[in-house]
């Protein structure tokens, strides 16, 4: 855990410094007339202190050799794939519309989970896409993007 704390404390420290600078630029104001950066200044200032404390504690902490666990165990590539496709889906949906982009996303997700034949994921994703389209778009009147193909 020591290495994780060292890395994460540095991340929070960096974030806190950025917010601190941003809040000073916005105007911290005075206690009698607090500015719009007042709370952010206080919160990020405290976060700087806590991050430094965490870093120092982790730095001086003794850890028995072999205790540290790997950060990513198991099938972490699946995690990256799913996250990547979520972002890809968000970018694709306005252009391709709900039906096509959701079909593609679900096929990939079902395939990631199964990793066998492609037929099963394709059938499942066709059913799921159409069913959710009927329920949410036709019954509940949600406005999904139609995309280039207008459906």
């Amino acid at each position, binding site marked *: 855990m020591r290495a994780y*704390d060292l890395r994460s404390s540095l991340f929070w420290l960096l974030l806190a410094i950025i917010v601190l600078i941003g809040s000073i630029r916005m105007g911290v104001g005075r206690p009698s007339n607090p500015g719009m950066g007042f709370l952010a200044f206080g919160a990020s200032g405290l976060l700087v202190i806590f991050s430094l404390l965490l870093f120092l504690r982790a730095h001086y902490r003794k850890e028995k050799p072999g205790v540290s666990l790997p950060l990513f165990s198991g099938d972490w590539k699946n995690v990256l794939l799913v996250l990547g496709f979520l972002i890809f889906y968000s970018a694709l949906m306005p252009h391709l519309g709900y039906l096509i982009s959701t079909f593609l996303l679900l096929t990939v997700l079902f395939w990631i989970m199964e990793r066998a034949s492609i037929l099963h994921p394709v059938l499942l994703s066709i059913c799921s896409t159409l069913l959710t389209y009927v329920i949410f778009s036709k019954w509940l009147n949600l406005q999904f993007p139609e995309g280039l193909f207008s459906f």
Partner: protein
Amino acid sequence: MDLFDSILYGFQVTFEPANLLFCAVGVLIGTMVGVLPGIGPVAAMALLLPATFHVTPTASLIMLAGIYYGVQYGGSTTSILVNIPGEASSVITCIEGYQMAKKGRAGPALGIAAWGSFLAGTMSVVGLMLVAVPLARAALSFGPPEYFALMCSGLIILTNLAQGSIHKALMMALVGLILGNIGLDIMTGLPRFTLGLNELTDGVGIIPLVMGIFGITEILTNLEGTAEREILKTSLRNLWPSLKDWAEAKWAMVRGSIIGFLLGILPGGGAILATFVSYAVEKKISRTPEKFGHGAIEGVAGPESANNAAAGGSLIPLLSLGIPPNPVMAMLFSALIIHGIQPGPLLIRDHPDLFWGLVTSMYVGNALLLVLNLPLIGIWVQVLKVPYKVLFPLIILFCLIGVYSMNNTVFDLYVMAFFGAGGYLMRKFGYEPAPLILAYVLGPQLEQNLRQALLISQGSFMIFITRPISAAFLVAAFLLLISNVLPFVKKRRKEYDAFEE
């Protein structure tokens, strides 16, 4: 209106067809969410919140609350039959419940869990009625300094009750405050930390944030493992516990209900902590502690009662003070705000239909849950058999639809993916999301009260000390913080002395 008239009025509201329907839908979805691992009550509520925009605030709240206490019921089924907690608040039920199931006593385990949940749910509703109204009256005298102090002490209590490191929980609360700062400034109307993006002028949306941190993170974490479940093949007969079972479990239920109710009120307490405390108490006072770990029915009855009682208890700070004590209540808080209702001491006076309708719907919901969980247990066992490989892509799709439907913008999908990845990394690095969510929700109010208090006092921070209620809250929070720091300082001192010697 006296208490009796209010209860009658509440039942009148609950038995309106639309409200009754939403109550039934809420507890049904709650039970399903509880049974299925992979999506918790917070993500489920976030998912369904947009679906309640077209109904009355009362129906919306009745359904969302139904999901919460329904989850507590459903979680026990998975714990007892699969030895995997459907919900974090059912973790402890695995210990004794699964052992009972292995001995062929799954029926009594499920039965006592359902009855314990029903009794505790009912008791907590009575407690809620008795405590919330006087507390709201008292809170009417609170001004900005009192509210600021109350929120600060709430956040500090929350970080103290966090499961991991208090240090990291405090850091998460600060990150939540910063996140809550994004958007237009409440006093000047100018944008803050929006990075030039128009979509951020209203701040980071609670739905994509919660769905990312709770929903997507949970799925990503499960994707790493093999995620295979094996349902115990056991008899599901004799769901009605025997007289001997009742005799052994009755006081455990009462104790669990009291513990759950009291811990539910505390910020950060909630259902999870209540189950652990209840189990520890039962084990400690048992005449036969050696039975624990081998299928002691008290170890199922106590924690299952505690998690349901906590659901009722945690509504008290939200409905009477306007302060959500845990992320689930933060979702209800957001639902109220979205419907244009300000949670706080005036809620009971200005919206009696909402308050009494919600309270009495919990009586009705608890009775519905008993019907759903005992005679229909076979259906939930079938639901448990839905394979992960089908379930997870569908949960992701529902998350995407839920988030998109909030504002009809893909920007929210990016936000959800961002916080999904962030939540996953936070979990890996040992940071708890609950303080972040709560601080994010409370942030704007905390800031408003702080700035108003300072304007009143013309910049003097002494206003928080000179006013007795505010001072009492801050002193309590300070003592709590010190109580955590002192053992650490003592330990370091001992290490230093040892080094010197």
